[in-house]
């Protein structure tokens, strides 16, 4: 059913949408259009001349060893960050949802990192893991592990993952806790009376009922791992050592803004655009389903 309009006015509604529409046009559609257009051009590094090259930038991109490495890296990275950040948050949320003393204090203690910027989180952890002076960096050396994330690629990647997960747990925790609280307690008590173990109750009743939250969070976490971890990478490793932590969104930045390879950067933007469209489409599909059946 469509709601009837309340007001009749020919110009006012346009005036109301104008600010947002103007910003959208200038800072979203125009640049996105330019990115699409530039992805079909090849520009010299000084920006003096450009010529139309069709899909050559894309062909080049997908035959570029470094780019394919970055694609693979991004998928593994996003998968690990999503899985770890959600798993740990779910564990904490399940515990915080129990009837225990101090539940509200625990909640606050787990929610506050939401306020910390990914780059700030990276600075905090870099102090701890700094190979020569960091608390854990030094400790690892004393137990005989050669720890140096500046030079060691797996270590660099592990640290970037650790910081990204640390930062994202509180976000997931908020959603899982809300999801758990909306599950009717009677359902769980009934199962307990029937003699089901708490493990069984969790996997057979609670976890399935949480699936809308889990699905939503999966999309949001993949999005986070793809884009918002930029600050973590820039503060910790700058994509290195070598290209060990150069994810797709970091590579777009390096190729476009540092190496000034506009055509390639634009083509990479378009590839990322496809990734985001897929993620958003999944999300909308989910929202729609929820509206219909819930």
């Amino acid at each position, binding site marked *: 059913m469509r709601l*009837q*309009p309340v*007001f009749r*006015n*020919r110009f*006012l509604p346009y005036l*109301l*949408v104008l600010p*947002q529409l103007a910003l959208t046009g*200038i*800072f*979203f*559609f*125009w*640049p996105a*259009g*330019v*990115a699409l257009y530039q992805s079909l051009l090849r520009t010299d590094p000084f920006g003096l001349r450009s010529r139309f090259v069709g899909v050559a930038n894309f062909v080049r991109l997908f035959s570029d060893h470094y780019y394919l490495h970055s694609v693979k890296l991004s998928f593994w990275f996003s998968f690990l960050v999503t899985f770890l950040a959600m798993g740990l948050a779910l*564990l*904490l949320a399940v*515990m*915080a949802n129990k*009837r225990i*003393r101090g539940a509200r204090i*625990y909640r*606050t*203690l*787990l*929610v*506050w*990192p*939401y*306020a*910390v*910027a990914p780059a*700030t*989180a990276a*600075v*905090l952890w*870099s*102090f701890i893991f700094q190979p*020569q*002076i960091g608390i854990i960096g*030094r400790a690892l050396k004393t137990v005989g592990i050669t720890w140096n994330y500046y030079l060691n690629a797996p270590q660099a990647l592990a640290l970037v993952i650790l910081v990204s997960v*640390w930062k994202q747990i509180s976000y997931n925790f908020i*959603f899982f806790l*809300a999801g758990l609280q909306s599950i009717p307690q009677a359902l769980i008590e009934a199962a307990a009376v029937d003699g089901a173990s708490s493990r069984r109750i969790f996997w057979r009743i609670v976890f399935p009922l949480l699936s*809308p939250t889990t699905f*939503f969070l999966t999309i*949001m976490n993949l999005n986070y791992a793809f*884009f918002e971890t*930029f600050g973590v990478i*820039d*503060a910790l490793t700058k994509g290195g050592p070598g290209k060990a932590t150069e994810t797709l969104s970091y590579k*777009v930045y390096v190729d476009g803004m540092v190496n000034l390879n*506009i055509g390639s*950067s634009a083509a990479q*933007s378009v590839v*990322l655009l496809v990734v985001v469209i897929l993620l958003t489409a999944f999300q909308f599909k989910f929202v729609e389903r*929820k509206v219909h059946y819930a």
Partner: protein
Amino acid sequence: MPKLRTFWGSFSAHLVLVVGAAVMLFPVYIAFVGASWDTITIGRGLMPLTPGPNLVNNMIRALFVGSGLRVASVPVRLMLVNSLIVALSVAVGKIIAAALTAYAVVYFRFPLQNFFFWSILITLMLPLEVRIFPSYKVASDLGLLNSYLGLTLPLMVSATGTLVLRGAFRSIPRELLDAAQVDGAGPLRCFWQIVLPIVRPNLAALFVILFIYGWNQYLWPLLITTDPRMQTVVIGIVRMLGIAEALVDWELVMATAVLAMTLPVLVVVFMQRWLIMGLTETEK
């Protein structure tokens, strides 16, 4: 037997939660400790796990000087002011733009309405990375580099805000507005005096989320500010840190990190209720 079971149940819950909370707090504690020692102690790898004597000194030095032996930066108070300006203008600007759009979409019928609505909604799909170089180009062509307008305007488009407020407006009983109209109130007056006061909780929730969003922006301020006096604090710390060598003035960097977190963390802790409501009731 059941008693024992609940004892172990709540014991394991406390254990997991204490460990979780400790892991969350650990880097902040270490940052405080770092901010309370000096460059030489830290640089030699001799920093103990307990606070030293220089916390207040280092905080003041970070706030008003910003430079040390290895770090040459502007005073952190400038960066904090920049961050505050950015966070507040992004939050307020987004809410205003979103509220106006939502109001038009819910209470008026006009040609191209759906087209407008969807073209704003689709911006959900266009993060900066997807249009990075052209966005920078547009901002620089408009002369927005190193300016507050450049830092904030492009961040003010809010598809989420529009969606949230559209939902909130729709749940307001129509009779209320019809009655007000009969009494002679125009659309703008209804907006200010009826609609906005009713959705105040939603506005508070949006404000927390968007304030944090604005404060924590990274890529866009990184591109748009080259003048150190215009940089936000999140950018500022990373620039101070450089490549995180042993002999950075870590106590300054950590003091700055603490300062950078204080305000947003306070906002989240004290407006927790709004944040949780805002996130869980709106993002879906």
